[in-house]
């Protein structure tokens, strides 16, 4: 059935209904190996719900979901570990897999938190925990990685490094990535396909095509949209310190 060997997930006209109200509707998307698909959109626009459909956590109330992934890894948006559980980082890394200690150290190093290996999870700061979450997902060596606002609470430098890491992992593991992000700079510079959500798909396409789309500009306001077009623009040439174009 699956002619395209790179295809991991295909949603066709999917939607989720909650007490006779559609949270999202008419969602169609494809995730392929080695590609990053990004979901952007305002709060409550159904980004997480869409991701959960792709992960088969939520059933779609219409349309069809095909999922050919053999191993999925997930970085949820919100996760609170109950303080009643004495959970260390090393225990958490092996939550759904059996990885040996050396590999765990390697993966924690990727996100710069190897020194926290024996710390209890609830003693970590928000940003540290986020790094552990990403390391754990990478350690699973998935073919489909779903990241729901993975860098929330991470400091500015860390944010850039983590996004670089995500891009690198995508190539290294040749895995498909579904990313939910508010960082439009990263979205525009590093992803292959952008989907703009607001209860339905407003617009979708390559980052270049999307910034010119009127519904995108409407959704994010002219200011942000302009910033990003500018950012895109920066790729064709570079500036000198005084702002003039370098030749």
């Amino acid at each position, binding site marked *: 059935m699956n002619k395209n060997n790179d295809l991991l997930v295909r949603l066709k006209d999917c939607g989720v209904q909650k007490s006779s109200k559609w949270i999202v509707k008419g969602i169609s998307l494809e995730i392929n190996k080695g590609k990053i698909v990004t979901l952007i959109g305002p709060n409550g626009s159904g980004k997480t719900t869409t991701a*959960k459909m792709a*992960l088969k956590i939520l059933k779609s109330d219409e349309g069809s979901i095909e999922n050919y992934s053999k*191993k*999925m890894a*997930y970085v949820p948006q919100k996760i609170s570990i109950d303080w*009643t559980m*004495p959970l260390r980082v090393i225990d*958490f890394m092996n939550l*759904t897999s059996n990885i040996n200690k050396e590999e765990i150290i390697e993966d924690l190093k990727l996100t710069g938190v190897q020194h926290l290996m024996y710390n209890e999870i609830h003693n970590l700061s928000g940003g540290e925990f986020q790094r552990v979450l990403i390391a754990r997902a990478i350690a699973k060596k998935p073919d489909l990685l779903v990241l729901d606002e993975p860098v929330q609470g991470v400091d500015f430098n860390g944010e850039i490094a983590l996004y670089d890491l995500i891009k690198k992992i995508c190539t290294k593991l040749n895995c498909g990535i579904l990313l939910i992000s508010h960082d439009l700079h990263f979205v525009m510079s590093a992803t292959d396909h952008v989907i703009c959500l607001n209860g339905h798909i407003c617009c979708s396409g390559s980052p270049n095509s999307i910034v010119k789309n009127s519904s995108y500009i409407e959704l994010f306001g002219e200011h942000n949209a302009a910033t990003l077009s500018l950012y895109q623009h920066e790729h064709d040439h570079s500036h000198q310190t005084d702002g003039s174009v370098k030749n």
Partner: protein
Amino acid sequence: MFDDFFIRAIFAGVGIAIVSGPLGCLVIWRRLSYFGDTLSHSALLGVTLAYSLSINIAFSVFVISTVVALLLVSLQKRTKLAGDSLLGLLAHSTLAIGLVLIGFLSYIRFDLMGLLFGDILAVTTADIALVWIGGGIILIILYFIWKSLFSATVNYDLSAAEGMRPEISNFIFTLLLAGVIALSIKMIGALLITGLLLIPAAIARNISSSPRQMILITILSGILSVVVGLFASLELNTSSGPSIIVVALMLFIISLLPLEIRGQLQKR
């Protein structure tokens, strides 16, 4: 060797403490103490049914606890009441039905105190076999579903997304909880079973720093509570269930001490 009722009680009690260890930890981690309470209150109904239909007590308690657990799930889907209200409703109504039934069964002589608070004199050799074989089966099943159950305890979505099938292991967990209650009702009594599930795990939480360590300490403090509690029960002629729980409580207080001392040192 099992001729002495006290030796029998010790063997059965230690078996129960071992099985309750991991389950008690899960009950604490998942904040299910009220759920455990509800199941154990309904156990009394199971006992009276067992007497009136003359079937095996443990089996009947297991069936009733399972039915109550399923009832809870379906009620949660039908009403807007919060989980704790539904649990209270089920706990007290099944307890009440059980007690009313006892009134009807006047031709059978019931040891009500024994049912509610446990009776070591009642433990037979067959009960020991039941505890160890039944408990062994519970632990084996738990071993196989552990990864799924544990990951779902930490985060359900994550567990579901990564192929752990938490919906299945959650259901099995409910059955196992019903099972451990069925095994321990004779010894601990309907009102206090959750105490043996909860308090050793609470002791362990105070002094452990990893899940595995917490389970081991839970089992050890459970065994200690049972053995010391049964000795006390024998010496002081008190009901076995309450004696075990009081000992567990004392251990809990002791487990708090290091924290207290640490706190005072920090103040200085």
